[in-house]
């Protein structure tokens, strides 16, 4: 094993094997003594709030939340995107790099502390895009989450672009970027001031009647991103570097590269930081996780709508990929409003930009607001 840039292939065989699983649901089941693990706990919600950098009191202050619209602490709505039971890089096409291309989410009720949640995921479709530049496969994974009594909580479809590593289709992910963004002290100080200016609405109600087409939302800043968020979020199913790692290596040798020690390690660990991405991937650096952007939009919408707003839908397309160390600014504008089934629904246009002013995301969202009447 040598220390060259990694190249991997998505073979016809692995794609055929995966095709056979399209439509087959994968769900997590719990034995009686495991029930506590399925319940959304208060500390779990706080943990999400901390790692997402969204500490609004409706997530973390139980006394405050008890008198709020939901009668209890709720989880950041965007965690709906974290219940996927199929990992495109492990269970899907081992060895590929998977980046999120677009996401559609729908919520039916808030996720409350104490909820017992059952997720179920299915690969909905696979699209094979083969060219001289390498192979890319778009994998759509649909996940629905329900409570123990079967009441639907939400549904999301994440569309992953799975690319062969070491090919031009992987290089395309970086656009024109040749290196990670370099921050100066002045730049960091300006970000600190921008963070300090954030003003979430909180408990004050924004009525449907008071939102008007063309209204601009106060933007939300996130980043610069760093590695620890991955550490904090990591709830892995595989345990590498010990016996389990060797067993996984036997089952999926294509998941591994020969690392600095010439020892096998999952390729995914080259995506966490610039040093390794540059050395082992032959790419300009490490990419950010686009899943984070769903959280950022949720933060933007709740800052505007306040505790009483209910995000019911989000459709996002990720046109460019950020690198670790970038910031993302999320923007929104009221596009339309309607009354439906006794509810006041606002449709918003959503977009996100990085520190270079590049538009990295576009999309729409719907938020239900209380009616004055």
């Amino acid at each position, binding site marked *: 094993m040598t220390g060259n840039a990694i190249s991997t292939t998505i073979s016809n065989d692995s794609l055929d094997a995966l095709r056979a699983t399209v439509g087959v649901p994968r769900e997590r089941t719990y034995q009686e003594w495991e029930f506590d693990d399925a319940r959304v706990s208060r500390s779990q919600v706080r943990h999400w709030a901390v790692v997402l*950098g969204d500490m609004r009191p409706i997530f973390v202050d139980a006394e405050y939340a008890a008198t709020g619209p939901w009668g209890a602490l709720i989880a950041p709505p965007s965690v709906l995107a974290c219940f996927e039971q199929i990992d495109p890089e492990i269970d899907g096409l081992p060895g590929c790099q998977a980046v999120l291309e677009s996401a559609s989410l729908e919520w039916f009720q808030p996720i409350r502390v104490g909820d017992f949640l059952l997720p179920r995921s299915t690969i909905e479709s696979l699209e094979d895009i083969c060219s001289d530049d390498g192979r890319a496969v778009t994998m759509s994974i649909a996940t629905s989450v329900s409570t123990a009594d079967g009441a639907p909580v939400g549904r999301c479809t994440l569309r992953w672009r799975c690319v062969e590593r070491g090919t031009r289709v992987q290089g395309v992910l970086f656009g024109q970027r040749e290196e990670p963004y370099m921050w100066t002290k002045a730049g960091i100080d300006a970000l600190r001031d921008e963070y300090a200016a954030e003003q979430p609405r909180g408990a004050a109600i924004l009525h449907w009647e008071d939102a008007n087409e063309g209204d601009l939302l106060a933007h939300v800043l996130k980043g610069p991103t760093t590695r620890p968020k991955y550490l904090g979020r990591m709830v892995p199913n595989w*345990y590498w570097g010990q016996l389990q790692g060797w067993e996984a290596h036997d089952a999926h040798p294509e998941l591994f590269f020969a690392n600095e020690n010439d020892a096998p390690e999952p390729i995914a660990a080259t995506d966490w930081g610039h040093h390794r991405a540059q050395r082992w991937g032959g790419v300009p650096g490490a990419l950010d996780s686009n899943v984070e952007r769903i959280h950022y939009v949720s933060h933007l919408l709740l800052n505007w709508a306040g505790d009483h707003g209910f995000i019911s839908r989000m459709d996002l397309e990720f046109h460019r990929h950020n690198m670790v160390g970038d910031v993302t600014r999320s923007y929104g504008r009221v596009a339309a409003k309607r009354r439906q089934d006794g509810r006041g629904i606002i449709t918003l246009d959503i977009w996100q930009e990085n520190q270079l002013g590049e538009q990295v995301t576009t999309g729409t969202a719907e938020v239900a607001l209380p009616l004055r009447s």
Partner: protein
Amino acid sequence: MTQAEEQLTKGYGYADKKKGYGQITDEAVAALASRIGVERTRGLAEWELDDSRFTAGRLRRIALASGDYNPLYTDMDYARKSPYGTLIAPPWVITGIEVTNAARDGMPGLHAWFRGTTLEWDRPIKLGDYLTSTGVLTDVRRVRSQTSGEAVVHEYMNTGYNQRREVVGRMFTSWHRAERETSKGIARNQKLRGLARYSPEDLMRIREDYAREVRRGAEPRFWEDVRTGEELPFVVKGPTNQFQRAVGESGGGIGFSRGDPGDWAHTHANAFKLFERHPGLPFVNEWGIPEIPLVIHNSNERCQRYLGLPGAYDAGYQRINWTIHMLTNWSGDLSFLRKLNIKFPSFNIMGDTTWCYGRVFDKRLDGDAHVVSVEVWNDNQLGQRVTSGEAEIVLPTRSRPGAPLWPA
């Protein structure tokens, strides 16, 4: 940016440093010493304690994150028939009672190295239990040696309780604080060795050693059958890598700081707020971004550049877990690890492989307890001793096979 400017803004500490920052001064040592004997608690609310109960999922992640497949921790059908009647936690979860340590207690800007710990257990920790604790700084002293220059040693005692307020055990820790430049000196001799490199044959031998693991399991190991000088079957761990260390040191994703979920996971606005409160805290990374200092120790490049180490060093905790894996593999389900004293004389560098060994050096009656004392040590792939210590295990006796093994 000129190189000189870059030096000013990269590395440890972003904001203007106060006088004495990162230095050992009489004032800083005295300020720290004034906390000796002051009891500290984590101040966790009832709900936080309740949320920190060892659930089946948590036990499984904790055990597997350290590579210990013992069904006592993961298989309810097996555990029900065991002496405990339910799933138990691996003994090393006692390290979760640590209320504070030298990495965040006094003298900001000094590097903290974990020297070693003594762990004592009074009773097993079971499914559904939670741990609460008190901690106290017991000693602060300045030391000086030829190799490490001037340093300060902090020592702590932590006492752990379960939800019934029964003492489950104690953790005594010892820490070494040194100025960053001195720390580079400590590390300098390490640089000679470089990162571990493995040939395919080396890896094959390690795999074969994994296959040689022996777990005693349900068959009692009677005290009478143990002889002094007896060697315990070893376990092998590694080669570690970033993936494994991220999992292992976070206890399988349950949070690095165990009782404090997300404690080190400050991002976005939270990170900026944290660094405003503690301007000396952040490490400014290669791209000009302030980060929590913890990130140094998971990066080969950063440990090489800023500490002069051959690669990323470990926090020490995993070696406790691995050593306990080796001990409990040998002593079996019907046994009680009551004490482990462990020291970290050398570094465990990213990519190292660790063999955990033990040898019985004493057996005796202590009151009603039939005790064996085991010398423990860990060697790396270079044959260097990176860990040493002693353990005391209470074993069942043939004369009274059903007698309780722990004092409670």
